[in-house]
């Protein structure tokens, strides 16, 4: 390598090193910061500690946990809060990085909109309605609290509601909720939402067996097996046809 080439190389690399210190956000920063942090763009150590990354202590020096969701970092009331109830005051520790990140290039790798509920104090964690609004459908409107009997704290769906307790959703009944629960009304259902069960046919079959009270299908039928009938107030009838014991068949 010629001496001139060596000098050119060295000069270029020195210029790049200087640029890295003068414009760190352009030279080494992994993408833009969020607009609220734009002023910190060239001050990497406002958020980062050397060799250990972004530090929660540095976040809380501006974002005081007792004020998050209530006041801005300048002390003004928050105009459009992201959550209906401030909850940062109920966190078990100030681990900001567990949920928040910055820099466009880093945010790409982080799941957004996910919050680990285990970071909340136990009492707050169990009070879902403190932060979440109940869905508008009639089923949820009847329920107050105790969401965890059906929903987990990781995901709203799938809910762990045990539908089989009321009616087994087998392959013949693998349909949209609205087929049976019309207009999102989960307090009611109809078995006449499909072609298989017509009111006329069901009526005829039950009258033949001497059954006149057949409005509430799931009272006796817990699955698609027409022989598996469970009469209320009696032990399981076993495999039998309506009203008639298997022995009679």
């Amino acid at each position, binding site marked *: 390598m010629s001496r001139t080439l060596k000098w050119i190389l060295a000069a270029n*690399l020195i210029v790049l090193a200087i640029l*890295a210190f003068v414009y760190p956000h*352009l030279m*080494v920063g*992994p993408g833009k910061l969020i607009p609220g942090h734009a002023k910190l763009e060239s001050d990497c150590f406002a958020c980062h500690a050397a060799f250990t990354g972004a530090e929660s202590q540095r976040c809380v020096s501006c974002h005081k946990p007792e004020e998050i969701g209530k006041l801005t970092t300048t002390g003004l009331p928050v105009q459009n809060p992201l959550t209906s109830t401030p909850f940062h005051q109920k966190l078990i520790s100030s681990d900001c990085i567990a949920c928040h990140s910055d820099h466009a290039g880093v945010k790409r790798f982080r799941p957004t909109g996910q919050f680990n509920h285990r970071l909340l104090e136990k009492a707050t964690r169990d009070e879902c309605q403190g932060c979440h609004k109940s869905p508008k459908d009639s089923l949820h409107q009847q329920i107050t609290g105790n969401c965890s009997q059906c929903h987990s704290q990781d995901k709203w769906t799938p809910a762990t509601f045990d539908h089989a307790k009321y009616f087994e959703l087998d392959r013949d009944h693998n349909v949209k909720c609205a087929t049976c629960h019309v207009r999102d009304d989960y307090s009611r259902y109809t078995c006449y939402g499909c072609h298989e069960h017509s009111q006329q046919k069901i009526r005829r079959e039950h009258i033949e067996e001497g059954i006149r009270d057949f409005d509430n299908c799931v009272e006796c039928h817990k699955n698609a097996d027409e022989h598996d009938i469970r009469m209320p107030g009696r032990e399981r009838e076993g495999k039998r046809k309506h009203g008639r014991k298997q022995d009679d068949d």
Partner: protein
Amino acid sequence: MTNNLWRNHILPFTLLVGLLGVATLVGDYLLHRFNLVWIGRYLGIPGTLLIIGSLIYSLRKRKMITSGNMKSWLSMHEVGTWLGSLMVLLHAGIHFNAILPWLATVAMGVNVISGMVGKLLLGRSREHVLGQRDHYQLRGMSKEDIERAVFWDAVTLDAMTKWRKVHIPIFIVFAVLALGHIISIFLFWGWV
């Protein structure tokens, strides 16, 4: 330029460079498709280690180390740098975040291409031009006619010789820029 030079030398070179580009695009697509982008994020580490490991050939060539077969070290150098570069290219992805790592990526690309020029083109092309000269000489052509016949091959060879000379200086640029990127990551990234 004769067809032979194109078919026997330039085409394999183009295919190998093209394969690197296609493998990068396909790999990047698959990582995104299967939501495995985080793997690309860490591929920079094994990629860099492979490139560093393949430098043993350069040390052996300059007699800084004496053990091992030159040919084996060269093969390891070629495979290691190609694979290492692929990993670094996947690590870089198609996301433009900071200037320094991208300059390092460009320098690495130039370095890989100049290395391939050395491997696939230069030696064989030199042999090809000399062979052509001998061939025309045996046919009794005058010196001027021979020079005219091999003119474009000679020009190509000359350009490739210059390109080959870029390999070491551009590697130094790549090494310094990559080091800057690695230092900045260690300085600002939270590993724990």
